[in-house]
């Protein structure tokens, strides 16, 4: 994308920053827990800046007191999907809010080839533009393999 020439997927919080370390991730989780959010781990291998529908790994985690529990779940997700995109989402269950309050990527494939621009010719000389991930050409489950 033009605003992000590196090809990295940018979505949610902190995605323009260098990858967070585990200690930094734990601090963010800790912040969310203090706010009373419920964390969940989600993964996908079909990235798009606007694809918000990822698969959830396990159950959302309610009633946690410490970041170690979420980190445990994140570790098992990383073991299962080492080259997928993984993100943590925090659900705020406050009445009237009831939505995702935080979301950030915590695992990326080793190589992110980025997104290509697709041009579509329509009426007259009008052009329509969209983007498409290079890896999305391959079948689900075979993307981001070395």
């Amino acid at each position, binding site marked *: 994308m033009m605003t992000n020439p590196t090809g990295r997927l940018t979505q949610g919080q902190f995605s323009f920053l260098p990858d967070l370390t585990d*200690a930094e991730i734990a601090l963010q989780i800790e912040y969310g827990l203090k706010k009373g959010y419920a964390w969940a781990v989600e993964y996908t291998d079909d990235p798009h800046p606007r694809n918000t529908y990822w698969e959830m790994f396990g159950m959302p985690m309610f009633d946690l*007191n410490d970041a*170690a*529990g979420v980190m445990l*779940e994140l570790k098992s997700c990383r073991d299962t999907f080492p080259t997928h995109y993984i993100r943590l989402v925090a659900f705020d269950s406050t009445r009237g809010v009831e939505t995702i309050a935080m979301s950030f990527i915590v695992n990326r494939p080793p190589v992110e080839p980025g997104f290509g621009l697709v041009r579509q010719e329509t009426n007259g000389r009008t052009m329509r533009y969209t983007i498409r991930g290079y890896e999305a050409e391959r079948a689900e489950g075979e993307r981001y393999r070395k």
Partner: protein
Amino acid sequence: MAMYNIPGSVTTPVPGATPAKAGEVVEQGDGVRTARTVAEVMAQSQAGDVLDELDRELVGLAPVKARIRDIAALLVIDRLRMNQGLQAQTPSLHMSFTGNPGTGKTTVALRMAQILHRLGYIRKGHLVAVTRDDLVGQYVGHTAPKTREVLKKAMGGVLFIDEAYYLYRPDNERDYGQEAIEILMQVMENNRDDLVVILAGYGDRMETFFQSNPGMRSRIAHHLEFPDFAEGELLRIAEMMLEQQNYRFGPGARETFQEYIAHRIRQPQFANARSVRNALDRARLRQASRLFANPDKELTVDDLSTIESPDIRASRVFDLGAAATPNN
């Protein structure tokens, strides 16, 4: 490598994550001098208060208190070692509490969570109390997520498994309890810094449990034996319970209760402090109906808070006790 630091990620390092080099004086971020004496650590952590509270509010249990003091001492010394830049390997603090019913296993576990939190061994200091039902699932594939969920909730605190011997059912080899035990052992080993597991149960049954799960026994560093209370201790427990609820013994009632304990202790299904609590609850019931029977009387604070001797004397235990010893 990192281009810039994320705010908050540098100012609050995880405690113990970056031990100082040997001999180096470490200043803490807020300018507090690093503790060099036991007293300083105790003052900073307020663990001493909890230990004193334990002494004051828990009657008896001398061996248990001694062991808790040992553990607290080790943690304080470890803290001092870390401040001096010496290696301080986090000790394994998983425990098993064995003892007869009503000897204070749950109460001590709750205190243990506070003490370990004050000493900085666990991060949050909450206690998650579970039994077999909370860990073991109903069908294939149900147990692992269920156990993991409980473990995740307990992270940063203490996981207290009451009547832990029910986890293992030798009569059914396809019982899912074994699966829960395996997950439990794995987390006890790998996440030693994140949570402390306390297994509790009656002595003889826990013994069989450990015999059939030797891995479990070796992963538990502290086996605490809870002794039965003596009669005098039970009386003091009763007085403290009454005090907490704003009651007190009337004239002669203390002696009557002493007599009651002497009878009750010899009867089957005696559950130490729990029996005392139940006896007091029944005495309160009788006191209430005694006051209730006299609707026109103006009741003073004294009337409302005094347990009289007859309130206790009315107990069935005295009849049974008399029947058992004909010369009484």
